[in-house]
């Protein structure tokens, strides 16, 4: 059965009523002006102390009795046929318990898996790798993007050319619009391959008990890994258990049973003992994924009012032996434009495969689009923020522009006289867009115990964002109990199904399932309490740790006292995440303002200040939400200024697969960051929560690059903006 309800949705100064039909066992979606006890309160992470003290158990920390240590041999050369792999000497080494080849066909990048061993200590495993004899037949290779596109370039795949087929789309009449445009600009923007650099590397601990496999692994999707392993080993899924209690980051690189997870399980089976196999840092850079490079030729046109009339993007990029280099997302949807032509092409090179990385395609697309927007605004003689306002039709972003401009001081900074010395400040603004509405599928269970404890269980995982905390907050809110009485149990396929943590989907997919389960449990608690309170269950409410009569709150029982009436040891209820409602909007915007200081004599850039405006529906915990925005910005600064997978074209290998040479921002490279959320009640699910991980990262590099360009008075079109690049950009005519 279902019911029809009219919801007030929207944000400050912009609400409207939306009528939706919702199932009977689904709580009414949170609306604009909803009053909460816990939701929205800045709340320290429930597992913060565990992490700070080292008590949190990551895959790296798992120790099992009799556990062996696995290690993987990787190809040092970028392209070869493997004639033979001789494991015999490795197998004879004392302490080696299993050795296996990893057949991944032809070697197509330096770092590809060749063989693996398991031994009683990590040192013996490392020694054993050195005893494996591999007979390679080297083949010609190419690692450079432009070189790979030449007709004479060595083929990465025998099945086709290195230059993939173009993926094109056209809306309206771009050629006609460019011909009539009052002004146009055209420029090419480049960005490098960026690697994920999760602080916890990929890896697993695998343990067999007969035909039952248990795997602890650092993953964004325990269920996805379970299903992959079940297929690989031809087991029913219920004979595979995957556990990820704590995860040191993933950023899109940790979906499914990757080679090291399967290898750990294979070695464990062969050795008849548990095997731990965690990747060393270099392998993490070489083989576990990356954000593809991009070369984007962008053309924009405006009419005499400053309205965008045409966009043209021609892009190519390389994800090594992987694809997914496309960057057109921002061009098709951030700004209003009637005539758009987009063309994207993958280029294959002998380098490690791409994998999804934090808003795949968007940070690089946003970088090119926003720099082009700046160049267009300057040519049209319009303030850069005003130019964006004129071409924006998203009311949430319009509000964010205004709040951001005020917090950042855009007008005053724009009017400030140019400095005369070598240090020049510059400002930039860039817009974000994302669609983290979440998916149906997750099922949650919430349990009340006789002693008053509440436990929630769901097969999601926390990749570092604070999932345990926000889920516990949602359950505590619904049950009217203090957060300290609720424990979140996640990261285990023994709990009910949840979706992988990707696409910023964890919060929007899981919070509604938890809320529904908690609401169903609350109804059971009401039925337990009703006779004592002399009221109908439907007349009760759960607040302040009490179950009480709504019209007469003095008739109340403590939640814990109601739990004492549980006939057995516990009562529980389930909830499911149902499909999205129509809601207010199904997108989220956001914008970021950056101020930088450039030493124009050395080309060294310092980001001074970053003001971020974001919306993510209802913000459950402003502290963890802000942390995600901080992280997205810092990763964006790395992309803008430092990070670059540097491949030697003659050797075909990555020269900087270390934390030393692959340069990530450190504490002194992080600016003052101010984060403001525009709360939106979007009614898209019963919580209306949206994800933030990607939205927070989309615009950061673009805002920084726009600010650098402003500081030096010339467009800085090539990332990363290392001193050599900045000095080179300054050589261009202004």
């Amino acid at each position, binding site marked *: 059965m279902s019911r029809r309800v009219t919801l007030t949705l929207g944000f400050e100064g912009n609400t409207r009523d939306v009528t939706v039909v919702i199932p009977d066992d689904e709580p009414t979606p949170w609306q604009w002006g909803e009053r909460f006890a816990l939701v929205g309160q800045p709340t320290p992470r429930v597992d913060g102390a565990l992490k700070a003290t080292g008590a949190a158990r990551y895959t790296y920390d798992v120790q099992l009795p009799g556990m062996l240590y696995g290690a993987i041999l990787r190809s*040092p050369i970028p392209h070869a046929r493997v004639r033979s792999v001789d494991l015999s000497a490795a197998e004879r080494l004392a302490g080696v318990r299993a050795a296996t080849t990893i057949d991944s066909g032809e070697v197509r990048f330096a770092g590809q898996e060749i063989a693996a061993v398991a031994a009683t200590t990590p*040192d013996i495993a*490392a020694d054993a790798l050195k005893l494996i004899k591999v007979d390679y037949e080297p083949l010609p290779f190419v690692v450079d993007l432009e070189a790979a596109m030449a007709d004479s370039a060595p083929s990465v795949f025998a099945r086709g050319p290195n230059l993939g087929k173009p993926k094109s789309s056209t809306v309206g009449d771009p050629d006609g619009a460019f011909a009539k445009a009052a002004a146009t600009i055209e420029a090419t923007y480049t960005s490098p391959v960026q690697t994920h650099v999760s602080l916890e590397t990929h890896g697993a601990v695998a343990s067999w008990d007969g035909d039952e496999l248990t795997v602890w692994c650092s993953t964004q999707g325990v269920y996805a890994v379970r299903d992959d392993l079940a297929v690989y080993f031809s087991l029913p899924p219920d004979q595979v258990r995957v556990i990820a209690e704590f995860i040191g980051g993933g950023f899109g690189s940790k979906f499914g049973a990757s080679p090291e997870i399967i290898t750990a399980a294979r070695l464990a089976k062969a050795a008849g003992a548990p095997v731990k196999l965690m990747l060393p840092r270099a392998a993490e850079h070489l083989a576990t994924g990356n954000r593809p490079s991009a070369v984007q030729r962008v053309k924009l046109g405006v009419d005499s009012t400053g309205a965008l009339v045409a966009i043209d993007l021609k892009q190519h990029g390389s994800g090594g032996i992987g694809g997914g280099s496309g960057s057109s997302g921002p061009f098709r949807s951030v700004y209003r434009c009637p005539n758009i032509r987009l063309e994207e092409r993958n280029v294959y090179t002998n380098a490690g495969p791409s994998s999804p990385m934090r808003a795949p395609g968007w940070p690089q697309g946003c970088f090119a689009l926003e720099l082009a927007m700046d160049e267009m605004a300057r040519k049209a003689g319009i303030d850069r923020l005003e130019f964006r306002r004129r071409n924006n039709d998203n009311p949430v972003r319009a509000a964010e522009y205004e709040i951001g401009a005020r917090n950042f001081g855009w007008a005053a900074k724009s009017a400030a006289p140019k400095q005369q*010395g*070598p*240090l020049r400040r510059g400002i930039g603004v860039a817009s974000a867009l994302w669609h983290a509405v979440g998916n149906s599928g997750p099922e949650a269970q919430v349990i009340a115990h006789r002693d008053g404890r509440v436990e929630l269980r769901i097969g999601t995982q926390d990749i570092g964002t604070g999932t345990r905390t926000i889920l516990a907050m949602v359950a505590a809110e619904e049950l009217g109990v203090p957060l300290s009485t609720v424990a979140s149990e996640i990261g285990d396929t023994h709990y009910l199904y949840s979706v992988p943590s990707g696409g910023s989907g964890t919060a929007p997919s899981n919070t509604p399932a938890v809320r529904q389960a908690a609401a169903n449990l609350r109804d059971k608690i009401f039925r337990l309490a009703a006779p004592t309170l002399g009221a109908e269950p439907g007349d009760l409410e759960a607040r302040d740790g009490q179950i009480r009569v709504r019209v007469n709150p003095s008739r109340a029982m403590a939640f814990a006292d109601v739990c004492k009436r549980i006939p057995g040891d516990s009562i529980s209820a389930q909830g499911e995440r149902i499909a999205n409602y129509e809601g207010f909007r199904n997108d989220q915007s956001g914008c970021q303002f950056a101020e930088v*200081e450039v*030493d124009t*004599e*050395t*080309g*060294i850039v*310092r980001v001074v200040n970053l003001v971020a405006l974001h919306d993510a529906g209802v913000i459950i915990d402003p502290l963890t939400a802000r942390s995600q925005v901080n992280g997205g910005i810092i990763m964006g600064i790395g992309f803008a*200024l*430092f990070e670059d997978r*540097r491949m*030697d074209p*003659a*050797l075909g*290998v990555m*020269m*900087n697969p*270390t934390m*030393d*040479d692959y*340069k990530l*921002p*450190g*504490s*002194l*490279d992080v600016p003052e960051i101010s984060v403001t959320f525009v709360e939106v009640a979007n009614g898209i699910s019963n919580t209306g929560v949206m994800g933030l991980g990607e939205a927070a990262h989309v615009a950061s590099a673009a805002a920084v690059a726009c600010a650098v360009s402003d500081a030096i008075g010339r467009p800085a079109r090539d990332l990363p903006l*290392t*001193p*050599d690049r900045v*000095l*080179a950009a300054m050589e261009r005519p202004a």
Partner: protein
Amino acid sequence: MNRFEVITPTDVGSASRLLAEHGRVAIAGGVDVVDLMKQDLVEPPALVNLKGLKELQGIELRPDGTLRIGALVKLAEVAELPLIREKYTALAQAAGEAATPQIRNLGTVGGNLLQRPRCWYFRNPDVHCLKKGGDKCYAIGGLNRYHSILGGGPSYIVHPSNLAPALVALGASVRIVKFADTAILATAQTELVALDKFFTLPTVDAKRENTLGAGEIITEVIVPPPAPGTCSVYLEAREKQSFDWPLVSVAVVLSPAAPGKPVRDARIVMGAVAPIPWRSPEAEAALKGAPLDEARARAAAEAALANAQPMSDNAYKVVIAKVIVRRAILKAGGIQVETA
């Protein structure tokens, strides 16, 4: 990493004798040695642990006015000691700019001088380059954005030490001890080597960066007293502000450093530009004999880089080096410069 034993001698004589045996490596802070071992770049059968040696500890101003810094003194201590900050400013600044607080709390003065180059071809265990006995410097025609612009060939590494340019500019020496084993007594041979003679170019031996031989130990650094009115400055340019190696560094010692007075003596030594700390007599000559001003500093910086021979990707280092040298000279001379 190979299997190894750790031997902890209690006196420098035993340490020297232990280190004379083939392949053994000294360990103090362990910052670089452990890294090299993890990459299989050194595979010592034994590490000789110097940490307990009394002869290598402590900082003192000696009666003759010289400053003695034990080789085991931590970078953090050099950076923070008021005596060094006031009289040997460039040295304190060089130590303070190195690495991270954690590494400065572990890394020693001796280790900083003796650390191996950061070249990514040298550090890659799969690349058998000239420095490892191969026949080729891969920086030539390769990725050389961080390589040398002066004094390169046949290897084009840059010397990675922060302290070395400052100490060379301050006229420092290192005491090197070697104990010859005799039947009854160990006899110490101790030698004071000027630091500008200690570091050697790849033309001497591409596999080494200095003259330290087997069984030899740096026990201390001796810095002469600065002439009255001397001022010293160390500056470096880095891509990142946290935990990064300098693209270019420079130490400048000027005396007298008072504005308006003619410069009597100048020492200018650049780091991260050449396989050794690179002293520039040309730049020094450009400063001597006249009062310092912006134009003179600029001319000296031009002179310092006049012989630069950048590689395919590192011409920008020449630009940055000129700026850093000029700014450091002006700072040492008490002339204000606007810098980040």
